Each structure stands twice: as structure tokens, then as C-alpha cells.
């Protein structure tokens, strides 16, 4: 050691010291109030393909926090939302969730937008016994292998969404169906949901064409669909994939012979894609602001959102962000505690109506039983930039539409 100049060691120390200063928690520490805040971690893909949906989730979640704090919080403790960018990347989502739990010491986690990230966040949370309320679609999060007492699922499942659209659309448009499916778990789950609901109605699957996730050019799949001449083409994909496949199906003049439906019509995707791409397309969603005409809580929610955000209306995923946080905070009050286990038990008993009518969490898998809205894209007579969908029907919440507890691998519980 004597051979090395002292400055080499000093260099090491300086480097360590500099990196400590740069990365020190000092920069990120928030001023502490007298009573510790109720901290809710919120990992969501602020950058990447779904950043618009994610940012709406954040806005709506922050509204929920504001409303909670405005009523005095819980025993004087205010709620606080810690938003983190998971970049739509499960590895990053895991790291961020670890950060939220280990460094920021959050009490609960709500969030994520893709099935892969939501399952990942769930895994990290359940190992550490932190309550997680998932606000993104997934069939697997309800299954026994991924589920835990700390896992809650605010969002719809592909099974229910696809089933609702199937129950509405199939009797109307014909029996021969082709599926153009994104080749990942979510896509497969949607097809399964359609087929389950459709078989009793006599639906015939002509083909289930699986395209790689993220395909931008669908021309290679369309000639075959053209040749099959189905009554219904179901686009079992999401977001930009849906936009591109819908556009290109239109280019190949499929709409003249075939009705195009999709399990999930995203409000933000429709706004970005424009009226022409989505013309005549019908699909399901968890929420559309137009429900305010018939549902009081929708009107209240929309007005609060408009007031907070310059006249803008909340999107479907935004509403889920709102409800996800609101449910957890309500359960804190009901349980009179911020311990995840106690809050979990309170959430299981909760019956709520935050924005679209009554909802509750099924006991065996903590799935939020809720309504599904069937909408059709508007291409003419749009009053303003928000008026993009026409509500065709609302399927009322019904436990029967979910997959059974046994099928998911749960022992049926009573409490």
C-alpha cells in the first residue's frame, strides 16, 4: 500500500464524497409536518408509449389526494402521492417500487399501466406486505399464483371487458369472427374472454391471427382477413397497436364487409388518432365522461376534475387512478389504521361509488366488481375535442361475469 501515492486514495475518497453529495437524499427530502403523512407510492409510465394515459392517472390521483386532505385527512394526517416513472419497463418498475418502499417508506402503493409492470409491482409489494391497488388491466393478477392478501385490483379484467363487448356486439353483427390479436398474455386473455362469452351465442372463430406486439405495419395480416370475409373483426390489441391496425384495416377496405370491434377503446388513443382512423369502431371501456348524463357521481367527479384542470375531462385510466387512491384512503379511515393488513380487511368490506356507480371488491380475489361501458367512436357531429364517443350501452356490475374463484385457484372465503 505504501507504493501507491496518497493522492490515489484521496481521489477515491473525493469521488465517493462527490457522488454522495450529488446523490444525497438531501435533495429529495421533503419537509416533515408534525404528524407523518400517509404516503402512497404511485409508479406509472410517465415516459414511453402510454405517457398520456399515465399523466392523466397522476392528475386524477392527485385530485383524490387533494379531496382527502381538504376534509382534514385522517386524524390530522394528510395524504401524499409519490409519483415515480417506471418507463413501462418491469425491471424499472421493480426498482422504483423498491425505492418507494425502502427509501420513501410508503404505506401503500397504487399504480402501473401495463400488465407486466402491474404484476411486477404486485410481486415486490406482496413480499414486503405492502398493500397494492392495481389500476391496470390484467387477468393474471387475480390468479392465486400472483395474488396475495395485499393485492387489490381496481381496474377491469380483459375477461370481463371482452365478455361485455361480446355480449353486446355478437348478437348484432353476425356469427363469423376473426381475431387479430397482439401476441402477449393480455391479447390472449382478451380472445379467451370473447370466446367464452361468444360460444353460447353460437360464435364461430374463423381464425385467431396473432401479430407480434408493437407491430406498426399490419398489411401482412390483412389479405388473409380480407379473404376470410368475416362478419366481425375483433382487434385484440391496445393503444397504438389498435390505432395502426384499425387504420390499415380501413385502407384495405375491410369496413365495407366487416364490423370492427375491440375490447378496449382508449379515450386518449382516440383523441391522438383522430376520428377517421377509429370511424365506426366499437369497444369497451371502464369509464367515459359522457356518463355524467345519467350518473350523479360521474358528474361530481367530472366537475371536480374540470375545476382542477382547466376544463379538461378525465379519461378512463385517469378515473382508475382516482378510484384507486380514493378507495385506499377511505379504507384507512374505515380501518382506523395505516397498517396494510388492517386496511386490506377494511377494503374487503368497502362498498363505494366514486365515479360510475356502485362498486365493491370480490372477497376471493379482491377484484373490483364494476360496470363496463360499450362505446362507439364518433366521427361526425362532435361538439368539442372531448366529445369522441357515443355510449351504446352500460353492462351493470355482476359477479357472474368474472371468472370463478375456483378457476383462479382460490379457496373460496367467507369474510
Amino acid at each position, binding site marked *: 500500500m505504501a507504493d501507491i501515492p496518497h493522492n490515489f486514495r484521496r481521489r477515491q475518497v473525493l469521488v465517493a464524497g462527490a457522488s454522495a453529495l450529488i446523490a444525497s437524499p438531501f435533495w429529495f427530502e421533503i419537509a416533515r409536518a408534525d404528524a407523518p403523512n400517509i404516503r402512497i407510492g404511485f409508479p406509472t409510465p410517465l415516459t414511453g408509449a402510454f405517457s398520456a394515459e399515465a399523466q392523466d392517472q397522476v392528475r386524477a390521483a392527485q385530485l383524490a389526494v387533494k379531496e382527502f386532505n381538504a376534509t382534514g385527512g385522517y386524524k390530522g394526517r394528510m395524504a401524499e402521492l409519490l409519483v415515480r416513472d417506471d418507463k413501462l419497463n418491469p425491471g424499472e418498475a421493480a426498482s422504483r417500487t423498491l425505492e418507494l418502499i425502502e427509501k420513501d417508506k410508503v404505506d401503500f402503493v397504487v399504480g402501473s399501466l401495463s400488465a407486466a409492470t402491474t404484476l411486477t409491482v404486485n410481486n415486490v409489494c406482496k413480499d414486503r406486505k405492502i398493500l397494492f391497488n392495481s389500476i391496470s388491466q390484467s387477468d393474471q393478477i387475480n390468479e392465486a399464483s400472483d395474488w396475495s392478501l395485499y393485492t387489490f385490483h381496481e381496474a377491469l379484467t380483459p375477461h370481463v371487458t371482452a365478455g361485455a363487448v361480446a355480449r353486446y356486439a355478437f348478437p348484432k353483427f353476425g356469427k363469423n369472427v376473426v381475431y387479430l390479436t397482439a401476441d402477449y398474455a393480455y391479447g390472449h386473455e382478451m380472445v379467451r374472454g370473447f370466446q367464452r362469452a361468444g360460444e353460447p351465442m353460437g360464435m364461430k372463430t374463423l381464425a385467431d391471427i396473432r*401479430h407480434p406486439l408493437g407491430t406498426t405495419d399490419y398489411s401482412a395480416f390483412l389479405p388473409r382477413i380480407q379473404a376470410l370475409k368475416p362478419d366481425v373483426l375483433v382487434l385484440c390489441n391496445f393503444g397504438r397497436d389498435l*390505432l395502426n391496425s384499425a387504420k390499415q384495416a380501413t385502407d*384495405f377496405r375491410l369496413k365495407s364487409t366487416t364490423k370492427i370491434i375491440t375490447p378496449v377503446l382508449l379515450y386518449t388513443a382516440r383523441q391522438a388518432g383522430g376520428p377517421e382512423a377509429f370511424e365506426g369502431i366499437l369497444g369497451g371501456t371502464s369509464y367515459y365522461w359522457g356518463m355524467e348524463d345519467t350518473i350523479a357521481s360521474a358528474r361530481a367527479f367530472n366537475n371536480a376534475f374540470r375545476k382542477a384542470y382547466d376544463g379538461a375531462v378525465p379519461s378512463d385510466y385517469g378515473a382508475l387512478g382516482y378510484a384507486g387512491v380514493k378507495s385506499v384512503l377511505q379504507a384507512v379511515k374505515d380501518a382506523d389504521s395505516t397498517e396494510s393488513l388492517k386496511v386490506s380487511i377494511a377494503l374487503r368490506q368497502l362498498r363505494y361509488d366514486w365515479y360510475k356507480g356502485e362498486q365493491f371488491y370480490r372477497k376471493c380475489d379482491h377484484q373490483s366488481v364494476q360496470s363496463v361501458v360499450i362505446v362507439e367512436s364518433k366521427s361526425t357531429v362532435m361538439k368539442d375535442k372531448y366529445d369522441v364517443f357515443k355510449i351504446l350501452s352500460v353492462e351493470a356490475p355482476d359477479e357472474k361475469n368474472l371468472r370463478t374463484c375456483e378457476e383462479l385457484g382460490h379457496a373460496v372465503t367467507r369474510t
Partner: protein
Amino acid sequence: MADLSPQLLALQLVTGLSLGAVYALLAIGLSLIFGMMGVVNFAHGAFFMVGAFLGVYFLGMTGSFWLGLVIVPLVTGLLGMVTERLFVRPLYGRGVDYPLLLTFGLSYVLIEGIRMLFGIEGLPTATPVQLRGAVNIGIGLFPLYRLFLIGAAATVIFGLWLFVEKTRYGLIIRAGSRTPDMVRVLGVNMSRIWLIVFGLGTAIAGLSGALAAPIRGVNPEMGIPVLAESFVVTVVGGLGSLLGAVTAGLLVGVVYSMTSLFAPDFADLSVFVLMAVVLLIKPQGLFGKSGYMG
């Protein structure tokens, strides 16, 4: 599959060719820059994306799709030349890795720049009015715009070939890529050559983007998968070969299209398998000769 018919196969083949046309255009831009300068342009997909955004933007501003097709390559070409002059030139002589990393960083900057200018969602696009609709090409309905794409790509490729093979400037470029020192001795300014070549490559990339925009939505991340596709095609064809880029582009398009018919979930994979197979049999690519365009 009971529904296979000769018409369907033929239609699928035509689809493959239209896909291939875009691939070929993409590959040429990349191949030009690597073949002539030995620089791997990792921002190729980003320039494609910028071209797509600019195309939609100019369409909105001027109402003319065709004017956009002229302006976009000029703008992206200029952007490319600025990149070469300011960022790539200091790295010459350091080996092939450094321009790679630099252009990778540049792609991040371009993506973020477009996000800041045009928003994170992307822009809605529509096929230009004159080219809408599908025509019956005897074997089925095929979108008119895609036929136009095949034609447009062929025109650009032919124009480039004329330039490189038949003009004096093209001669200088070809000579400069093989023996730059000799060309310098003869009094030609190699720096200017490289500037122009880089600009030409990015111009073509931007043009490809503007041409592709009406088919697919335009969003800031659209260039990322394009980069991988371009590399695959370029390498299969052989870096630095115009004929190679075109052949490989069409080949990849047809392979992708045919795989989509028989095993659609393996469509993406088929392209990589093709690349692996070609390179293992012919390690220089189909027409690969280093530093020679032709």
C-alpha cells in the same frame, strides 16, 4: 389452412413487396453512410421519425402532401449535415464505436426534441386524398397508397443509382470510399464529401418517414423498431451495396409477409432468423463489399 388460394398467395406477395419497398429505402440510407464513411448511424430511426413528423406538419401547414415530400428530405438532410459537421467529425480516426455511441445519444435528443415540439401522444395522420382507397389489382383489393409507395421507393432508388453510378459526383463518392487518401491527393475535399454523404443518408431516412406516416400513426417512439429493421436489412444485403440494400429489403419484406400468412406470431422472428442464416452462410451479407456502392 383451408382458406389458402393462389390469389391470396399472390396478394400476400404483393404486400411483401410493398413492405420491402420501405425496408429498401430505409436500408439505403444506413448503407450509404456506413459504406461510404464507416459510420454506424444509430440515429437513423430517429431521423425517420423526424421526417414523419415534419411530413405531417407540412401537410397541415401547406395542405400539400407532395410539397411535404420535397421539403422533408431537405430539412432532415440539413439536420444530418449539421450533425456530421458538429458532432461526428471530431470523432474520425477513433474507430467505429464512437460515432455509434454519439448517434445513439443523438437519437435520444431527437426523440425528446420532437416530444417537446409536438407533444408526447403523436399526431393524427391520414392518407392524402388523391391516394385514398383500394384498387382491385386482379387478385384482391389493395390500398392505392401502398402501390404508390412501391413506385415512390423505386423512383428514389433509381435516382440514387443514377447519381452514384452515372455522375461525376457519384464517381468521386465511390472512389473516396475506397481510397480516401488517393482522392485527397487528387485535390478533392473529403470532408465535404462526407458531409454530403451523411446528409444524403439522413435525407433518405426522413423521406422514408414522410412516406410511411400516412400508413401508421406518427409518434415519438416510432423510430425505435425501425432502427432494428434497417440494420437487419442493411446487413443482410451487405453494407455499402445499393443492390444489396434493395434486394435484401424486398427479400425481408416478402419473408415477413409470407411468415405472417402461415405463422403470424413468428413474423418478427423470421426476419432475425433470415439474418442469422444469411450471415452464417455468407458472412459479408449477400452483396457485401466494404466501402463500395454498386
